[in-house]
Every structure is written in structure tokens, then in C-alpha cells.
């Protein structure tokens, strides 16, 4: 759909980077659904698991993944569901059906934020420059997800299995995010793929 524009659609890679040690890749148009509910309520967790095909992670700072669906724990009664592009409306409807009558909230945020992957040999250094959170593997293990600062804005940071970082950033801050990223990675070399 040509009418769609992801928050980072206009970003172009810095010119003449031969040796990129930080790589940015936007995963555009993912479905982002915010889910609220009581994890102690089995009716809630069962229904959600049935719709999503994967159980809600209830441990703080944890995530769950099944196929193209990923779930981030945000707080004891809040999750971010990342679903395949263009499926968010269906998933939202399915959840509303399955959770009818329960004290829950399902909110589409697909246009309000975007998913960005940061990788490369010096991505750890970049993260040290950018967030106050300790992204060392001993503290941010694979699959762990935290909401914290990123430069002067916030981000949801998820450590991926390949050692890279998935970040969820807010649309309105995305220009600032990229401005920061380009600046902070200048000494390492940045490639946008």
C-alpha cells in the first residue's frame, strides 16, 4: 500500500560507509498491540494463549515468541504483542472476542511505534552510549526485554538470540532516534539495511 509510511521511511544511510560496525534495520509495519489484563486470572491467560498460540510471559522483563508473534512483558498487567504486518486488526478482533466480558484492554499502536534492529560488531558500545541500562549479556540475556532510556527518549529493548537488539521506539521520536544513532555510531560506521 503506497499510502503507508513507516516512521523511518525517509531515513537514508550515511554516505560512504565502507566499514560499518553498527547496522540498523527497521522491521516496518509490524502489528503492535498493547494488551492489558490480569495474569492471575486463568480465564484471561488461557484465552490469550489460545488466540496467540503462545502463553503470555508473566516473569518481569521476559518475552515469548511463536512464529511471527512475539510478546514483550511491559509490567505485571501489560504486554506488547508484535504480530505479522496487516494482521493486527484480526488479532485485535480475535482477542476482543475471546476476552469478552473480562477486564482487559486491547489497543492498536501499530502506527505509533516501530521495531528497529541494531546489530554489528560494535553494537554493544553503541548501546553503552545510548542507554543507562546495563546491556551486558550477564544482565540482559537473550530474550530479556526492558523498557528504559535511549539517549533522551525511551525504548523497549529486547536482546535477540543472535546478539543483536530489537528496539521499539515511538514514531514521534524516530527522527531524533536516527539523528542520535547516526551521531553515536559515527566512530564505528553505520549501515542502514
Amino acid at each position, binding site marked *: 500500500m*503506497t499510502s503507508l509510511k513507516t516512521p523511518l521511511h525517509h531515513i537514508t544511510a550515511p554516505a560512504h560507509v565502507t566499514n560499518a560496525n553498527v547496522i540498523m534495520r527497521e522491521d516496518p509495519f509490524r502489528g503492535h498491540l498493547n494488551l492489558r489484563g490480569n495474569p492471575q486470572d486463568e480465564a484471561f491467560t488461557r484465552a490469550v494463549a489460545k488466540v496467540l498460540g503462545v502463553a503470555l510471559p508473566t516473569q518481569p522483563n521476559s518475552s515469548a515468541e511463536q512464529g511471527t508473534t512475539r510478546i514483550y512483558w511491559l509490567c505485571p498487567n501489560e504486554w506488547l504483542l508484535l504480530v505479522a504486518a496487516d494482521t493486527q486488526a484480526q488479532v485485535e478482533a480475535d482477542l476482543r472476542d475471546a476476552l469478552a466480558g473480562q*477486564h482487559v484492554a486491547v489497543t492498536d499502536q501499530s502506527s505509533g*511505534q516501530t521495531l528497529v534492529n541494531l546489530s554489528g560488531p560494535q553494537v554493544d558500545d553503541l548501546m553503552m552510549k545510548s542507554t543507562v541500562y546495563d546491556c551486558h549479556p550477564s544482565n540482559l540475556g537473550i530474550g530479556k526485554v526492558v523498557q528504559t532510556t535511549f539517549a533522551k527518549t525511551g525504548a523497549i529493548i529486547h536482546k535477540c538470540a543472535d546478539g543483536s537488539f530489537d528496539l521499539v521506539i515511538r514514531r514521534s521520536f524516530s*527522527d*531524533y532516534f536516527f539523528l542520535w544513532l547516526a551521531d553515536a555510531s559515527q566512530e564505528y560506521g553505520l549501515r542502514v539495511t
Partner: protein
Amino acid sequence: MSQHNRLAQGGRIDRNQPLSFTWNGKQYQGYQGDTLASAMLANGIKVVGRSFKYSRARGIFGHGAEEANALMQLGVGKETIPNPRATQIELFDGLTASATNGWPNADFDLMEWVGKIGGKMMPPGFYYKTFMWPEKMWMTYEKFIRKAAGYGKASLEADPDTYDKMNRHCDVMIVGAGPAGLAAALEAGRTGKRVILADEQNEFGGSLLASGQTINDQPAVEWAEAAAAELAAMENVICLPRTTVFGYYDHNFLGALERRTDHQGMTAQSGTRQRIHRIRAHQVVLATGAIERPLVFANNDLPGVMLSGSVATYVNRYGVVPGNRCVVMTTNDSGYQTALDIVAAGRTVVAIVDVRHNPEGRLVDAAREAGITVKPGHAIIEAKGNKQVTDAMVAPIDIEGDKVTGQPMSMSCDLIAVAGGWSPVVHLSCHTGSRPQWNDEVAAFVPGPTLQQQHLAGAIDGEYSTAGALTAGAQMGAKAAASEVHNQYDCGDESICPAQAMYLVPHTKPVSRAPKQFVDFQNDVTAAGIELANREGFESIEHVKRYTAMGFGTDQGKTGNINGMAITAKNLGKTIAETGTTIFRPAYTPVTFGAIGGRDIGELLDPARHTAMHSWHLDNGALFENVGQWKRPWYYPKAGESMQQTLNRECMAVRRSVGMVDASTLGKIDIQGKDAREFLNRVYTNAFSKLAPGKCRYGLMLKEDGMVFDDGVTACLGDNHFLMTTTTGGAAGVMSWLEMWLQTEWPELEVYLTSVTDHWATCSFSGPNARKVLEKLCDDVDLSAEAFKFMDWREGTVAGIKARIFRISFTGELAYEVNVPANQGLHMWQQIMAAGEEFDITPYGTETMHVLRAEKGYIIVGQDTDGSLTPQDCGMHWVVGKNKEFSFLGKRSFTRPDTSRDDRKHLVGLKPTDPTVVIPEGSQIVADPTQPIPMDMLGHVTSSYWSECLGHGIALGTVKAGHHKTGDTVYFPLADGRVLAAEICSPVFYDPKGERHHD
């Protein structure tokens, strides 16, 4: 000029790599491995600057952070850095430095004569006492005083370099890589824990780099090199040389400044010049060592008087002997080692003047065996010379060190090395609020109790022997890493003869009459000054500090404080422990503003938030206004238009046809849950119980004090589902305010809030032709006035995109807000612009929006209100629910006596008497402009604009009891002398019956 003080061999410099540098316009040579100070000393440069207050000639005195005199103006132009210490500047080829002060130059300084003539008349507080009268002249005096005194100058040009910050986390942070720090790091490192080791010098080793000792039968320097290499090879250890830990903050948080390229040249060729490491550590080992104390005798500030350990460092580490004939004065054994080093370097030690009457033992014997004259029970009571030392006046003293007991004799010399004992570097420990404690055994302050997870190792704890420091380091490193000690250390015989404390060297004359005896070189504080301060009643050490300036500035009392405190204690007949210390504060040594700013400069200073349509606004010439962090189009000037012309055009387009504003920045909160209505009833002044799906309602939010806090329109999306909008600037505050009530007071309410501000893009278009525009784009909603009323919302398809259409108006015209997911926001905006083309649809910005709403008397929270207006003050009784069951937030405050007063400031309309006038916003309002100043203020103008459609200026403002003064004329005395007048009127200037937006 040759490096005539350079030794032919020895030291950690590379004689095969000569480097040229310029000092005060003259070219010199040094070597790779030199500091600027060691290279200057090698070249025999004596005077390096002038003192702060008395403009006395000063020379290099120390070799590191303790240096108080050799502050440089490094580099020129935009690269220049004011006030780094020459002792901490690594020499590079082409380095340029000059003295920071001295007029016309440091070597010949006119102010010195002021100091000499006025010296006796310049006690502490001199400038303030003298130049404060007459008061108005201080500004004039100050200009001259500042020019003559003070230190370096910052560049006024932009710094070409890059600085940044890194957030680091570790298990064990070790500060200082001398023997204790290295030993600690080796122990902690081998456990696999995450370790950071930082040292301010270019290479690890600290005192070992200038030591002739052995460690486990290995030369100390070699051991240090091996230890550094071993640590560098450990993946879990981060080694940060050239890194000064400048601050130690709460909960084991430390700030460290890494100088990454300063040693390579004035600017970094690439990358980051300096980096601040923000370190959160589980455990901290402080191995910051000790600083040698100077001795306070007459003229002890003459160039050529140096710290004994510094002299030894120059000899052993840099291959430089700062003089040919040296007199050593000592209170302890360290002076003997320096004397032995000087003799080994082939220079003359005239005598070791030892204040102790019976020094004995290993080093004393060695000195005597080397043929050095030892003068026990003596002191240098005065140095003689003009701009450099030529003689030391040596006299016998009593056993307490209080009195001169015989005739002084003169010893000819060009160097006096002073060893007054060691002061542990307790600064970092102090930063978190821990007061140092006096330790009689080592005659020094050591770190006191602390709440931090902090361990002390080595000289900072009064452990001055190398083996002791290594052992303590190993113990503390292991302890911090929760492990057992692995390494043992033996450094041979390090036995010493006990030291004698001496803080003020007696003179034949009383302190007040003797030549100046300096305590704090950087701030020109003398023993006589302290005595005067004490006599004038300043007894608390904190007061003495502030009266005399002792320990101020970049020096932070590194060399002077202990002597000053001891002198105060003696003057007051107290012990040093009773007198105590002042508290050292961050930064330990100065941190450049470049590093403090890091990358948060320019465009990165504050995030700019953009809407989905931002690129369109840019492409169409919008100028932007900051609203919170948002960049909102302010107005869209066409070529040749003035701002007012643009606003007139944009306003009239809305009033006559149609205009569009990007309203995406308004805060949007999605509210779901069966108690959502109840929640809204509680947080808004009006009722939401009966708001049906498909309807919108304006709401006003108050703080508990009854004052307006935010406003916005809330739409009912479903029985248990609402969408609240907030002001652009208030969005985050409202969200956390609402969350707070839900989480802390009303957890029983089944309501969830989710911010959707960024998800929705909002195209708000209004004007008589608004419906016609929408009709072209939307055919699945009945847009007729009867079916889709003012304050309704509908879901429909606009330009092929599923949208929420709100029929709400902030302009007073027929208006629609089309909301679509922001990924489609730009597309929607473009489609509406295209559809509106035949109606000359005009994009407008915040300024036109402000004019249009002011014509309608709609408030802007935060502009017309300032947290001191109730809804009633704003004339908005209509939005306050009278029969709501729950006492909504702020309601109870309405009946407080102050809030229910009838003469509070009220928000009113103001119509200028002269229709061509636009009253400046912020103008004060008075009833009688002829009243003498101070006039009775009635209030002020909060909003004021030219209204093109009405043909006159309009304003809103607060006026005391304004609601009862309709028709009165009030006045606005302006700063330029004009007095404007206006009539108090209804704030609704345009379409008072509200017919247009209902059409």
C-alpha cells in the same frame, strides 16, 4: 635552548622521539613520554605563571593532580583549553601553551608590584572590603581586577572536537592503578567478575613508575608493566588509562573523564576526544594514593621550591633534574630517598634539613653513606630569591618544631625539595558525604565511615609502604570480588623512622610579620591570612575556608588543606581532629564543558518530536514552533509575506472557506474498562455518565487545589471505551496524573489507560466549506448537519482509509478532525489538501489557530491559565458538574475561602480602545495609569492578537474581579512609556451565539 636539566639516560621517555613545543611564544624541545611540565623543567623554565591574588612568580611545584601553580592556556583559538595543569598535559609535537595570567607577561608582571607594595594590606577579603565602596563602582573595579588576576580564558568559538558519554556497569570499580590498584585489579580480574580499572595517568603503575624498588625480586617498573599487560589481556577487565575518576556519587555511581586523544594533538583527528564514563559499580576499591604535603615557610612559593616526591618523579620517570644544587627539607624519610635519587643523578644535595632531632635508620644511614650532609633538628625557615630560589635560610628549631632556637644560616641552592608528609587522597570518599577522620598514627586524614560499598587500599588508608599497598590492594580486590587473596608481595626492607608532623615552620618573626608563608598556592592563602581569619572570629573550618578561599577552585585543597586546618587548630588551641576538615567536592580535577555536554548538543540537545506529516510541512515552507518537544507548524509564509500578512491570509481562509491544521500532537489516551465513565467523572469537572457512543464532550481537569490543569475533548467509542485528548504540552503529565489516581487511590476501578498519541495522525480542517471537502472523500457516513452533529464522531472511510471523524471545533467554524493511523497520516493530509484545492484549502499553523480560538474566547491551558485559575475564574462555570455523586478532583477546593473570593483574578476579554492596537502579551493591567509607581496591578494580558476578520486587536487577560467590571476601561503602561487602553468585555469576540460551528 637545550634541555640542560635532562639526564643523559634513565626515565620512561624516548630520547629518539624529540617533540617540539612552544611556551609563551618560544620554541623548546622535549621527548615522547614527557609531560609539558617535565619538558619545561628539562629546559630550565622556572616561572610558569603568576599567583591569583598577589601576582607572585610561581613555578612548577608538583608532578600530577596536586600541581597548584602550573595552570596553562593550552592551544590557541577555537581549540584552546583554559587551565589544564602542565603536570597532566602529555607532550605532543607542536604543542602550544602559554601562561594563563601575568600582564604584560608572566615573567614580568606589573601586578606583582601591586602585590608587593600592597601585600601587607591585602588580607583575606581585601577585594571585597576595599572595592565594595562605593558600591556602584564595583563593576568598574572588577573589570580591572579580573583582567589582572584570575586564570585562563575559554574560547568564544565553537569547539571543533567531539565528546561523548558511556554508561558502564561493573562488579568492581578500582580507582587508581598504582601498586594497590594494580594488585586489587589482578585479584578481582582473575575471578572473572566485571572489573574496571581507571587511572589518570597515561600508563598504569603510579608511584612504581618512578621507583627503584623491587617487587618479589622484580624491578617495580617491570612488575607494573607485567601487571598492566596481564590486566589488558583479561576480557572481563576494562582498563582505562588517562581517565580521572572525578566524582563519586550516591549508590556507587562514579563519573570518570577519559582523555582519549588529548595526548595526540590539540584536536582529535577522528573519533571522540574526551569521554565521560558514567559508572555504576557494585563494589568500589579506592586506591587513589596520597599527595605529598608542602611545608609552610617564608617565601615557600618561590619557583624552585618543589615537592620532594615530585623531584624524585622527575628524576626517575622523566630523566629531568629540576636543579643542580638542592636542599631537601623533610619531616620524614621520603626526603632521604629524593636526596639519594638526586645524588645518583649526579647533582648536588647541599643538605638534608630534617625537622626531627634524631632521625635514624635505613634511609638516614644511606644518605650519610652517600656523603650527604644531614642537619637534624633544623628547618628551612625562609627561601630567598627573586623569581627563583637562590638561598635557603636554615635554622635550628626546638623539638616540638614551634620555635627557632638559633641563628639562621644561608645555603646557596637553586632547588628546595620539601617533604612534609603524605595526605591520603580522600576526595572521592568525601563526595558522597563521608567526613574524613584524623588518624594520629599516620598524622593524616583518612576516609571516614561511608554507606557506599567502598574499600580502601594503600596510601589512601595511610598505608605508605609499597609492600603494604600491594598487600592491601590484593586483599581489597579479592574482598570486592568476594574471593580469596591469591598473590603475595615482598618488597624487601621498607623500614622507616617515624615522621614528625609539622604544619607551620617557625620563623624568627611572628607569622604576621614574617614574609608570606603560603598554605594554598592556587588561592594565595597564607598562614597569616588564616591567623587573621581566626582572630576575626572565623573558627569553624568551613567559615575559614570561605573567608580565605582555602581549598577553593580547581585545586580543591589537595596540598594546602591539611596544613591550613592544622594551623587553624593550633590558633584555636584545638586538635586537628576537633577542627576537622572541610568537605571536598566533585570534581576532583576539572572536567571540560565539552565532556559534560557530550553529544547532547545542537540538534541533539533536546529531542524534537515530529508528526507523520512533518515532511509535508517542511516541503511547504512552514516555520515551526516548539510546543513541548514537538515541532508544530507555526505559520506557512508565502514569498513576500510578512508574518502578519500570513496570519491574516490563513485566518480569513478558515473564516471564509476552509483551512487545515495538523493536530496530531494533541495527547490521546485510550481508556477501556467498565468503570471508565466513573473514572472520567472523577477526574473531569463535568459529567460523563450519559455520554453516548458516537458523542464527544469537552472536559476540564483540575488539580486538587481546584486550579485548571488540562482540558480536552473526550469521545465515547463504546460503552466502556473512550478516547481522551489532552493539550499537546500536557500529555505526558496528564497520563501519569491519571495513572497515579488509578494505581494509588482507585485500584478497584476497572480501567486501563494506554497512550495512543503517536498512533493517530489528526487532520483538522475547518471553515464553511469543510463539509464540502469531506464529502468529496467520504461516502459511507451521512455528513448532513442533522445526522452528524457538532460534537459527534463517526467511523468511516476517508480517501479509502478507515478513519475516525470527529466533528469538533477549536476555531468556531464548521470543523472536522480526521484521525487515521499515523502510517497513513501523510497520505490522508495530502488527499484532503487535494480535495480542498477547489476551495483554496489553506494549511495553517499554531499562530493562526491561536488567533481563531481567541476570537472565540477559547482558553489555552498554560497560556491563559497558569495554575492559579479555577474554572469559575475562567468564566467556565458551565463545564462544572453540580450534581455529580463523586467529589471530583479539585471540587472541594472551590469552597475554600481563598478560592471562593469574589475578587479573584478573572479571565476576561479586552478590546483595545484604539482598534489598530495589539496590546503586547504579558502587559500589566492597571486601573489608573497616573498612579505613582508602584501601581496597583490588576492582572496581565495572557493572549493578544490582531483579528483580521473583526478588524481590530483582541486580547484575553486576567483582571481582579474582572467579571464584575465589564465595560470598564483598563490601562497597560508599557516599558517604552506608552500607555494603551482597552475595555473589559466578553472573551467571545466572534460569533457569540455559536451558530457557525453548529451549521
